[in-house]
């Protein structure tokens, strides 16, 4: 396929999601490529405009800092969806469940267990204690059913052979799920016909799934109908849209710190009926701001006494405080062993080869090869503060050499993973752009994964950085349902003729025929 939108499409050197190395279309993409062939470039750009207008009106925006007054931006969604076949997804899903299960057990072992994994010499004690994410304040603080990561976002990439590898774990406040749901909603409006050729698994049960998990981790005393709230830093936070979105999806209150009070170790919210008890807080603020009594005393965002209330077992904070130790990028190197230790199984998902710098031999080797490696600060997220060796200047490499020597625990080095590429609409044609995938894993009664997740795409040519704060966009991610799925819905047209529209009986005149074109997004691409 080298004509039309795909003219000049270059698919060598990287793993391409759509094309094999020989330029063949992979089977699960054939219907989509055929469908896209029906669209003219003009038609696609018309639909892009529709999409942009829809996102702006809906206020699906994030706030960009450092550009004068906080600017509201939309997160660009590429119109070409990413497709994952059923069997491929099943394997990824098993790997994610296994990984999050092990990480939950690891955290519980560290904070309320006997730290057996340290005593057994799997993870060095100093490595845990020196982690910025390790919170002494969380020691002895148990979480019902040990679901310390109620929501985990595990970033996956595919290497040059198409093998899925975990790039990093996000166990504190992973964001992005709102885009998964909103992207799907937007795609069904602007490119609805493409869905007809596939059986795409839905994602819109996320709210119910999350609420179920949060209620599951409520303190036992809360009874059958625990009160769940979402805690946000407020309307000026960059992810405020998502916080409001989640509260709406779950039908629970969105609170700020100032709406909550703690009295006698009971957390309540201020309502028009006085104080109302709260059982579970899905917090979207960082540990450091949760409770000025134990963490940063200058925090205006948190609630004084919250940690003590949690410790008294009167409220559950989700995700638990102190999860940062397990997504520390140096601990990442131990996760395969952590999985083996707690589950007795081999890890299903591959990792990226990672070098710790405390070992003098490793450090010397890494310093030698800085130009070939990626260096990341262990406690950062959002793609800040990284060195990408192959793309860096001599001066940048020298600067990092100094940093690594001064603070070896503060950094790790990894082999460069050449992220897979996916056709992406650039102006009037398609070009390959690097993508990753952030699936969302929910730990409630059982550990579940939302089909797919957020596919982020590096919109700049050649860039490997997909973070929204760094010029990334996203794609709708389609996980295909297995063949012969018993959940297949019945014929939708059934019963349609039985319905009658009531009308004014005096009205006998023929209604004028409405022209459908130009009136809406349009189902059919115009010729």
């Amino acid at each position, binding site marked *: 396929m080298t004509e039309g939108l795909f003219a000049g499409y270059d698919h060598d050197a990287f793993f391409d999601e759509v094309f094999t190395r020989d330029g063949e279309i992979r089977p699960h993409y054939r219907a989509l490529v055929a469908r896209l062939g029906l669209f003219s470039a003009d038609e696609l750009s018309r639909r892009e405009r529709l999409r942009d207008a829809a996102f*702006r*009106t*809906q*206020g699906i925006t994030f706030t960009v800092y450092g550009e004068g007054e906080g600017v509201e931006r939309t997160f660009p969604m590429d119109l070409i969806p990413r497709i994952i076949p059923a069997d491929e997804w099943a394997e990824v899903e098993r790997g994610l469940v296994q990984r999050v299960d092990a990480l939950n057990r690891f955290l519980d072992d560290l904070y309320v267990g006997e730290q057996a994994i340290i005593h057994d010499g799997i993870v060095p004690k100093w490595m845990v204690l020196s982690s910025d994410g390790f919170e002494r304040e969380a020691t002895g603080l148990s979480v019902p059913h040990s679901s310390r990561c109620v929501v985990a976002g595990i970033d996956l990439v595919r290497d040059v052979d198409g093998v899925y590898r975990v790039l990093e774990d996000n166990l504190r406040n992973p964001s992005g799920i709102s885009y998964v749901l909103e992207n799907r909603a937007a795609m069904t409006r602007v490119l609805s016909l493409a869905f007809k050729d596939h059986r795409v698994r839905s994602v819109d049960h996320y709210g119910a799934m999350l609420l179920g998990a949060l209620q599951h981790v409520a303190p036992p005393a809360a009874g059958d109908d625990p009160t769940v709230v979402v805690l946000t830093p407020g*309307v000026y936070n960059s992810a*405020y*849209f998502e916080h*409001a*979105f989640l*509260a*709406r999806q779950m039908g629970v*209150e*969105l*609170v*700020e710190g*100032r*709406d909550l*009070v703690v*009295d006698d170790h009971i957390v309540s*919210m*201020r*309502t*028009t*009926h*006085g*104080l*109302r008890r709260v059982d579970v807080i899905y917090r979207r603020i960082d540990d450091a701001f949760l409770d000025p009594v134990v963490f940063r005393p200058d925090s205006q965002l948190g609630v004084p006494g919250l940690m003590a209330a949690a410790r008294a077992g009167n409220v559950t904070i989700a995700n638990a405080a102190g999860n940062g130790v397990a997504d520390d990028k140096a601990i990442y190197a131990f996760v395969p062993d952590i999985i083996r230790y707690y589950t007795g199984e081999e890890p299903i998902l591959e990792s990226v080869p990672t070098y710790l710098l405390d070992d003098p031999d490793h450090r010397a080797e890494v310093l030698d090869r800085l130009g070939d490696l990626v260096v990341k600060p262990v406690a950062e997220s959002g793609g800040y503060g990284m060195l990408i060796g192959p793309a860096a200047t001599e001066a940048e490499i020298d600067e990092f050499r100094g940093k690594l020597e001064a603070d070896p625990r503060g950094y790790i080095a990894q082999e460069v993973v050449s992220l897979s590429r996916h056709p992406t609409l650039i102006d009037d044609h398609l070009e390959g752009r690097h993508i990753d995938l952030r699936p969302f894993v929910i730990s409630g009664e059982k550990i579940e994964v939302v089909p797919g997740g957020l596919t982020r795409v590096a919109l700049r040519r050649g860039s490997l950085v997909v973070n929204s704060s760094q010029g990334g966009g996203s794609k709708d991610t389609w996980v295909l349902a297995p063949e012969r799925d018993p959940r297949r819905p019945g014929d939708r047209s059934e019963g349609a003729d039985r319905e009658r529209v009531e009308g004014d009986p005096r009205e006998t005149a023929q209604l004028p025929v409405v022209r459908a074109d130009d009136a809406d997004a349009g189902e059919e691409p115009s010729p």
Partner: protein
Amino acid sequence: MMLSRHAESLFWLGRYLERAEYSTRMLDVTYHSLLESAAWESERAWRDLLQVLRSESGFDKTGSPATSEHVNRFVMIDRANSDSVSACIERARENARSVRELIPTELWQSLNSFYLALNQRDLAVDLAEQPYDLYEMVKQRCQTVSGVLSDTMARDDGWRFVTIGRHLERAQVMCRLLAIRYQNLGDVSFHQWLAALKSASAAEAFRKAYRGSQDPAEVIEFLLLSPVFPRSVFFSLRHAEAELDILGAQFGRVTRPQRLLGRIRAGLEFAEIEELLHDDLRLHLVEVESDIRWVAESVALEYFRNSHEFAPFVPTGPAPVGTKGR
């Protein structure tokens, strides 16, 4: 039951929407009625409008003469005016954003697209060249938002706070409008009473009810006391009161805002119009207006401030005689 902060946001959402709409209506009516008036009437009319909107001192600080151009710009877009129409829409949107998860998506979208549409236009140019289009656009968008509001929002406490906010705001401005017109009764032509009716979108309803009357007393009676016209002071107060009653019933007691508002409403409901006109009506209207402001203040104390940190006292068993009903 809802968060106090959310209740307050919804209350102000209602007030700002109402404020944006009537400010625009008054600009529209004043602007167009002046096209047929003598030049000397112009400054007076603009000054009256500023008084009704309680913007006169703010306007005077700008040092501009009260001409159509300057007043329009001040009321519509001036950054120095915190109650300008564009500021009201911006704040209504901010309030909606902070209760985003409580209000219907369609409501948020209609308000957000209103805000975006307003920001896309060069309002200064619109005002200078074709103010009618701008007035129409703002009025229609406001009506769209209130249509979506009443068609999609569940009749829960959130709805009640929006409604109370809107109706108190509406009653207040109508009192001020009548007071200022009445103050100049002697030299107010019926043309100007007609303008007052028009700015409440009441001219047609008035004609239907009073069959071509040109009596200012009947205009006042209509705008103040009509039980059927949705912008009359009495109608607005009764609607706000009905919502306050439902809120209060959940506590099993008569709340302070209910008592205050009930008294004002009864004063109007059982008054004879001759009696009102005979007394100093202007003074009376000023008093009613300031009493309504007290109602708004007591709603805030009862429901938003929540200064008493613990659940309000709810009597068990039947309420004592004399605390319920009227």
